C-alpha cells in the first residue's frame, strides 16, 4: 500500500545548459501543482529578483492526481515570479502535458538561469529516459500553431508540447504558456495569467516536448477504494446538471444581468451587445458549421471546451471562453462573437493572455486611440505586437503599460494585473480575493458569485474558496468538476494508502496561501488595499455599486479562519 513511487524532478539550468534528474522527495508526495510551485519558489527563488532576469525560477508542475484515473485531474501549473505583479504567480492549464509528465513519473520541471546568448532558441525534450536541452533555431519567433506544425515533423504523433509564442520570446508581460490539447494537439490551452510566458521566454525556452512512450496510468495504493471513488464521483457528476456542458461562454447572459459583464473599460457592468456576444450563438453555430464541445485532456468528463469554426466550416479557435468574450468583446464594445473568436485565435497564436490583452485594448480605446467597437482596428494591433512597435509593445505588456503609454487615468488593474470579468463592485467577496489574495486580480484564485452574500460573510467565504482552490490547483483537478476538500482528501487517501484527515488537508490549504503570501511579503507587497481608484470611484449598475470595502476587511483575509464545515464541503470555484 505505497502508491506511486520512484517519482522524479527535472532540474534545468539554462545558464550552464545542464539537466539533472533528481528523486522527488517522499515527504512532498502530496504536493503538486500550485502548492509544489509555491514551496519550490519560496525556497529557491529570491523574491526580490528581476522576474525576467536569471534569478527567477520557472516551475511546471502537474497536480498530485495527474496521470491517474481520477476524472478531469490532469491539469498542469506554471509558476514563477510574475513580471506583472512582481509577486508569486501560478496559472494552470489543461491539455495533455500534465498527464504525460505524471505518467512518466515527473512531478515537476524546474527551470533556472538564462542562456548567455539571448538570440538562441531552445527546447527541452522530455522522455522516459530523461530530459535534454536542444537548440532549435527553426522554432524562433514561430506562432504557437505554426510551431506545433513544425515540431510535429520531428516528434512522435503521441508527443505533447508546452510552448510560448512570439510574445513570450519578446518577454512581453502579457505572455501566456500554451499546452497542446489531447485530440488534435492544438496549442489551445493556456496558462495565461501573470505573464509567465515572458518568464519562459526570458530563459530562452521556446517549448518543452514530452514523449509519453509506453507510460501507463499511475497506480494507486488502494486500487479498490480509488476505483470506487472514480466511479461514484464520475457517476454523480454525470447524473447532475453538468453546469459546464456548454462551456463558460454561455454564462455571459446571466453575468450581464448581474452587472459583471464589464462594458467599455468597466464604465458599465452590462453590455447592450449581449445578444451578439452570448455564447449560445457559438453552441448554435455547431449545427451548421461543425465544431462542438470536447475534452481538452484525457480523462475529462466535463468537456467544457468549445471548438469554434468559421462560416466556411473551418477550424477557427478553441476554446472561446466567457472571460475572452468579456475582455476582448464587451469591454472593447466589440459586438460580434465572431470577431472575438478572431481575436482569441490571434492571442493564442502570439501567446497572449486574452484578459490582459483585452483590458489593454479597452484602455487604448478608452483613451481615444481607437474607436470603441473597432474590431478590425483591434486585430491590426496584433501586427503591432508582432512588430514590437511602441504601441504593440504596450499592448503586449498589458493594461498598466498601455495606461502608461496613453497616459489614461482609468486602468483597472490590481497589483499590475488586469482585473478579470468578474467585477469586484457587485461581487465584494470576490473583490477581497483580488485585494488580499496572493494572486492579485485573478478570479481563479477564489470566485464567489453571490451578490447577496451578507457583509459579515465576505471575508470567510473569500478565505474558504481561496483555500479550496489552492488545494484543487495542487491536485490537478479542474475547478469545473467542482471538487471539495473532502473529496480531494479521499482521493489522496486512496492514492497513497495513508489516511488524510480534514485537519491535514485544511493545513495544506492554508500553507499554500501562507507560502505565497510570504513570498510576496519578501517581494515588497504590502497589505494595503490595492484596488484601483477607478473601481472605487466609477459606479456600475442601477445600485451605483463601487468598491467600498474597508481596509479592516482586507486585513482580516490574512488571518487564518477557524475551520467550519463549509471549508470541507465548498466546491472549488474559479
Amino acid at each position, binding site marked *: 500500500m505505497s502508491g506511486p513511487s520512484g517519482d522524479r524532478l527535472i532540474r534545468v539550468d539554462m545558464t550552464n545548459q545542464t539537466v539533472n534528474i533528481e528523486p522527488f522527495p517522499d515527504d512532498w508526495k502530496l504536493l503538486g501543482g500550485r502548492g509544489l510551485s509555491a514551496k519550490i519558489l519560496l525556497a529557491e527563488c529570491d523574491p526580490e529578483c528581476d522576474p525576467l532576469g536569471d534569478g527567477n525560477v520557472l516551475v511546471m508542475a502537474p497536480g498530485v492526481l495527474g496521470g491517474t484515473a481520477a476524472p478531469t485531474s490532469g491539469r498542469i501549473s506554471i509558476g514563477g515570479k510574475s513580471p506583472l505583479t512582481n509577486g508569486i504567480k501560478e496559472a494552470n492549464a489543461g491539455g495533455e502535458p500534465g498527464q504525460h509528465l505524471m505518467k512518466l513519473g515527473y512531478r515537476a520541471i524546474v527551470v533556472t538561469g538564462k542562456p548567455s546568448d539571448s538570440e538562441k532558441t531552445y527546447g527541452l525534450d522530455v522522455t522516459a529516459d530523461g530530459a535534454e536541452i536542444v537548440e532549435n533555431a527553426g522554432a524562433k519567433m514561430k506562432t504557437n500553431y505554426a510551431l506545433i506544425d513544425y515540431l510535429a515533423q520531428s516528434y512522435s504523433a503521441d508527443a505533447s508540447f508546452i510552448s510560448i509564442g512570439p510574445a513570450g520570446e519578446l518577454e512581453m508581460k502579457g505572455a501566456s504558456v500554451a499546452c497542446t490539447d489531447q485530440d488534435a494537439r492544438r496549442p489551445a490551452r493556456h496558462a495565461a495569467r501573470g505573464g509567465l510566458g515572458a518568464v519562459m521566454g526570458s530563459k530562452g525556452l521556446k517549448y518543452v516536448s514530452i514523449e509519453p512512450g509506453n507510460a501507463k496510468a499511475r497506480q494507486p495504493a488502494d486500487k479498490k477504494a480509488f476505483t470506487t471513488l472514480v466511479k461514484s464521483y464520475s457517476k454523480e457528476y454525470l447524473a447532475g446538471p453538468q453546469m459546464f456542458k456548454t462551456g463558460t461562454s454561455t454564462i455571459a447572459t446571466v453575468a450581464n*444581468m448581474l452587472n459583471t459583464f464589464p462594458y467599455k473599460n468597466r464604465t458599465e457592468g452590462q453590455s447592450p451587445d449581449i445578444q451578439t456576444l452570448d455564447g449560445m450563438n457559438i453552441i448554435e453555430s455547431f449545427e451548421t458549421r461543425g465544431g462542438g464541445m470536447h475534452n481538452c485532456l484525457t480523462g475529462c468528463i466535463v468537456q467544457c471546451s468549445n471548438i469554434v469554426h468559421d462560416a466556411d466550416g473551418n477550424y477557427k479557435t478553441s476554446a472561446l471562453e466567457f472571460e475572452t468574450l468579456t475582455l476582448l468583446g464587451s469591454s472593447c464594445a466589440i459586438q460580434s462573437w465572431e470577431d472575438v473568436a478572431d481575436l482569441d485565435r490571434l492571442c493564442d497564436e502570439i501567446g497572449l493572455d486574452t484578459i490582459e490583452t483585452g483590458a489593454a485594448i479597452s484602455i487604448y480605446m478608452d483613451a481615444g486611440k481607437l474607436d470603441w467597437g473597432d474590431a478590425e482596428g483591434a486585430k491590426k494591433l496584433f501586427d503591432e505586437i508582432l512588430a514590437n512597435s511602441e504601441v504593440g509593445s504596450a499592448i503586449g505588456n498589458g493594461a498598466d503599460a498601455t495606461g502608461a503609454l496613453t497616459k489614461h487615468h482609468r486602468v483597472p488593474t490590481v497589483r499590475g494585473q488586469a482585473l478579470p470579468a*468578474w467585477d469586484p463592485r457587485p461581487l465584494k467577496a470576490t473583490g477581497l480575493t483580488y485585494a488580499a489574495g496572493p494572486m492579485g486580480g485573478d478570479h481563479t484564485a477564489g470566485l464567489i458569485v453571490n451578490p447577496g452574500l451578507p457583509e459579515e460573510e465576505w471575508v470567510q467565504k473569500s478565505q474558504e474558496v481561496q483555500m479550496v482552490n489552492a488545494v484543487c490547483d495542487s491536485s490537478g483537478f479542474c475547478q469545473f468538476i467542482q471538487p471539495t476538500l473532502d473529496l480531494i482528501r479521499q482521493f489522496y487517501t486512496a492514492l497513497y494508502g495513508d489516511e488524510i484527515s480534514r485537519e491535514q488537508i485544511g493545513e495544506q490549504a492554508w500553507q499554500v496561501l501562507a507560502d505565497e503570501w510570504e513570498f510576496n511579503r519578501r517581494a515588497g507587497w504590502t497589505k494595503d488595499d490595492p484596488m484601483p481608484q477607478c473601481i472605487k470611484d466609477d459606479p456600475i449598475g442601477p445600485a451605483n455599486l463601487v468598491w467600498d470595502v474597508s481596509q479592516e476587511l482586507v486585513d482580516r483575509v490574512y488571518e487564518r479562519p477557524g475551520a467550519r464545515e463549509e471549508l470541507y464541503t465548498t466546491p472549488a470555484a474559479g
Partner: protein
Amino acid sequence: MPRVKIPAPYRGPTQGRAAIDVVGGSVRACIEAVEAEYPGFAELVFDPSGELQSFVTLFINGEEIGRGEADTSVGADDEVEVLAAIAGG
C-alpha cells in the same frame, strides 16, 4: 408551503436569502411568488417570453424537470430548486 431554494448568484434580489417559503401550485407560480416579494428574481429564471433561461435548470425535490415543464404542479411539502450555471472563465 413549497420552498424555493435560491442559487448563490441570485441572492442579490433576495437580499441574501437562500430559501424562501411561498404559496404556489406550480414551479412557475412559486418563482412568481418569490418575484412578488423580491422583485428582480424572476427575470433571472425566465426570459421575457416566459421560457426558462438557457443557463438555468429547475429541480423538484432533487429531480431535474424538463426545460418546458415549468408549469409542473408542486405540493405543499415540495422543494423547488433553481440552479444557475455560473462560474469560470
